């Protein structure tokens, strides 16, 4: 006994088979094509038949087209090529988005590497002092304090110091008893001063260079004339 469902299934398969085989009359063929988008079962049956029969295409003998046919093929190819391609709007350009993605990825990689390799900026604020000559205001030295452990006194020129004298470097913060000596300075040379014995730098802290005797001030306080002076400014 054959159920109705099986009969339908057989009929569908027969139709699909003849459709793929190419033997359906034009009208029936068009009907099948119209039904395909709406009937998954028919579509599946057609797919199955295409898979079954497809290996047979290998049996088709290659034909060299006649000169007339070849000319016609070339003409239709040319006609197709002359049809201008629809202009693609920029937001549909795959290459553009690929490029942008690549740029974005590279940027995040660079930032990630920078983040990983950079030392975390310390909480110590950075200070800068420009030491100027009191009379002329000509800048002579720069004090840079961007390292929590030391400050650097950097010459902007070579200061003239009498041969029997020396430049001594001093600093004084607000509320300090008096200036503290940071050592003797050789003209034209950078002085590195470790800060481990001093309180942290503060805004407006005074720095000065005074002219002292060759071995430095004998009393631990500035005695000679101020050659250069400046106050600390916090750098943002």
């Amino acid at each position, binding site marked *: 006994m054959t159920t109705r469902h099986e009969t339908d299934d057989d009929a569908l*398969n*027969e139709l699909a*088979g003849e459709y793929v*085989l190419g033997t359906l009359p034009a009208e029936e063929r068009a009907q099948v094509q119209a039904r395909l988008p709406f009937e998954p079962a028919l579509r599946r049956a057609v797919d199955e038949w295409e*898979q*079954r029969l497809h*290996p*047979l295409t*290998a049996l*088709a003998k290659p034909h060299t087209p006649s000169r007339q046919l070849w000319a016609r093929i070339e003409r239709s190819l040319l006609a197709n090529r002359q049809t201008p391609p629809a202009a693609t709007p920029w937001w549909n350009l795959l290459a553009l988005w690929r490029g942008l993605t690549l740029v974005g990825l590279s940027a995040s990689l660079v930032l990630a590497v920078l983040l990983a390799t950079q030392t975390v900026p310390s909480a110590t604020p950075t200070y800068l002092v420009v030491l100027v000559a009191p009379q002329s205001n000509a800048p002579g030295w720069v004090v840079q304090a961007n390292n929590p452990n030391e400050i650097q006194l950097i010459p902007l020129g070579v200061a003239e110091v009498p041969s029997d004298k020396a430049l001594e470097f001093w600093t004084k913060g607000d509320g300090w008893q008096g200036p503290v000596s940071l050592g003797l300075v050789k003209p034209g040379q950078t002085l590195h001063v470790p800060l481990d014995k001093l309180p942290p730098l503060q805004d407006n802290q005074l720095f000065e260079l005074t002219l002292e005797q060759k071995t430095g001030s004998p009393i631990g306080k500035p005695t000679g004339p101020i050659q250069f002076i400046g106050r600390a400014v916090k750098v943002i």
Partner: protein
Amino acid sequence: MQAERIHGCLEQLEPERRQCVIHAYVDGYSHAEISHKLATPLGTVKAWIKRSLVALRGCMG
């Protein structure tokens, strides 16, 4: 795989029915053209093709 199976299953068909399938699919012949080519009545060709399809489906799954 599928290629071996279709050839194996075609082998099981009678030669003229096998010819019908090949003429239709490979050569693109219509029922009438096959009928003419094989000198066989049109109705017979249609029936052969129908039965060949059923047999092939049964053979190949």
